[in-house]
């Protein structure tokens, strides 16, 4: 009777590690971030982004020290959390707000055991906390290239009754609406408005094989089709709000999304479905944050279907 020795993965290592992955994602966020900075003015956006990144790194270090965990505060994951969180904030929010949000975000990760153990996307938890706790700041949007407050296209849709009021806002000119929504000339979060930047980021992520195409495609496809079913302009639907940002950068987070391609398609579909349902039926204009967080909960169930790889101990082994 022979005995098989089985070692746990990983068996082969390459140069891709956490630092490399996190920095790739951070770099691919840069075009969208620069677009947001240009559109809303650096005074309203740059401090939010910088403060958010610094406070995310510091709170990760402090929490890991307090919880006596290995210090990994410079592996880029905390910085990425801070960067992502800042990009989902409205421009011009008070500086203490991202600080509170990132502390909460990092806490939500560390309390489950740190990177790799967190059931929820930390940046989205931070954002959900900010939206629930300080709704006044988190829903006051800014008009592009000015300091005037305005509402987002989705808020127009939700509050004033459908596509009609959105079209009225753009003087009934559909191509002009598409154009300004595509270029980000609209109210919205810092990182979500500049669509060409987001697409560039997606290309970088796909070319470096940092993410696979399944989640973004099934997410956006579901949003497109379902919005069309519910009588929303489908192109408007995927250009508005944080759907693209969420589909490219939030839903594809390694820790909180499924691993098998088939499950990723289901996961993206679920995100899109919940997103549209929240937009159309709930009393919130946008539902990307909560749609992705809810699907994060489903991820372990989807992943349970993965068959364990080769290697079983033969009967009779001692």
């Amino acid at each position, binding site marked *: 009777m022979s005995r098989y020795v089985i070692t746990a993965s990983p068996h082969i290592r390459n140069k891709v590690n956490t630092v490399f992955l996190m920095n790739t994602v951070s770099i691919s966020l840069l075009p969208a971030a620069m677009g947001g900075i240009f559109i809303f003015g650096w005074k309203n956006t740059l401090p939010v982004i910088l403060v958010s990144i610094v406070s995310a790194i510091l709170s990760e270090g402090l929490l890991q020290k307090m919880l006596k965990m290995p210090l990994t505060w410079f592996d880029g994951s905390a910085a990425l959390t801070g960067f992502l969180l800042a990009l989902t904030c409205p421009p011009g929010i008070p500086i203490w707000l991202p600080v509170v949000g990132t502390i909460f975000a990092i806490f939500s990760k560390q309390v489950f055991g740190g990177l790799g153990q967190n059931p929820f996307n930390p940046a989205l938890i931070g954002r959900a906390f900010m939206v629930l*706790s*300080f709704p006044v700041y988190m829903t006051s949007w800014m008009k592009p290239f000015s300091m005037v407050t305005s509402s987002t296209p989705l808020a127009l849709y939700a509050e004033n009754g459908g596509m009609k009021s959105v079209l009225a806002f753009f003087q009934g000119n559909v191509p002009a609406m598409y154009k300004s929504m595509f270029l980000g000339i609209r109210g919205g979060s810092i990182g979500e408005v500049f669509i060409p930047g987001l697409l560039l980021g997606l290309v970088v992520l796909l070319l470096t094989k940092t993410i696979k195409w399944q989640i973004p495609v099934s997410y956006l496809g579901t949003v497109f089709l379902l919005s069309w079913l519910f009588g929303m302009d489908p192109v408007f639907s995927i250009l508005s709000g944080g759907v693209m940002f969420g589909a490219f950068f939030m839903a594809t987070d390694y820790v909180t999304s499924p691993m098998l391609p088939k499950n990723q398609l289901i996961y993206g579909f679920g995100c899109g479905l919940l997103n549209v349902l929240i937009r159309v039926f709930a009393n919130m204009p946008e539902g990307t944050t909560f749609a992705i967080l809810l699907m994060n909960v489903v991820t372990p169930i989807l992943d349970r279907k993965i068959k364990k790889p080769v290697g079983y101990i033969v009967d009779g082994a001692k």
Partner: protein
Amino acid sequence: MKNNLLKIFTKGLFIENPVFILMLGLCSVLAVSVSVINALGMTLAFTFVIVLSELTISLIRNWIPKTLRIPIFIVIIASFVTILQFLLQAYLPALNKSLGIFIPLIVVNCIIIGRIESFASKRPVVESILDGLGISLGYGIAIVLIAVVREILGSGSILGIQLFGSSFQPALMFILPPGAFLVIGIEIGALNAFMKKYNKKVCSR
């Protein structure tokens, strides 16, 4: 004997704290701990019902047929809850209004049924009263500890008195349901860490 009675009273505070250790009756705890005043009112209502129910059931414990015990318990608890609700409506209408549905729901509070089933239906009267008082004190400590954190963070006040200047922005999430779960989870974790450190005896159970 005296030592034994004291033990019955004090075990409800920490070792068998109904909220933090047994984790019973969490529904009303989470819902009512929005403000300290509500928490205190709920504790009073809870004390009234659990002490009187334990007293009554302990008195008649030898006449209760085993197969019918749960309906009998419920009828007795429900009678005291009805009395309590009439009293609150008459003398403390504001408290009655802010506690709302959670007063009638004391009837199905599993802490009370649990204590009656496991304690009052088997023990003499004095012990049952002490058990009821100890458990309600433990309940009160837990719910007030949760409410203090939630009211300070969620409304910036304590007992309705504003603590900070008008520039302070309370984090509304703490007076919403997610905040309740968050605070109770952190407090249970902190209590467990504390017990691990300072009371090896409790841990080794």
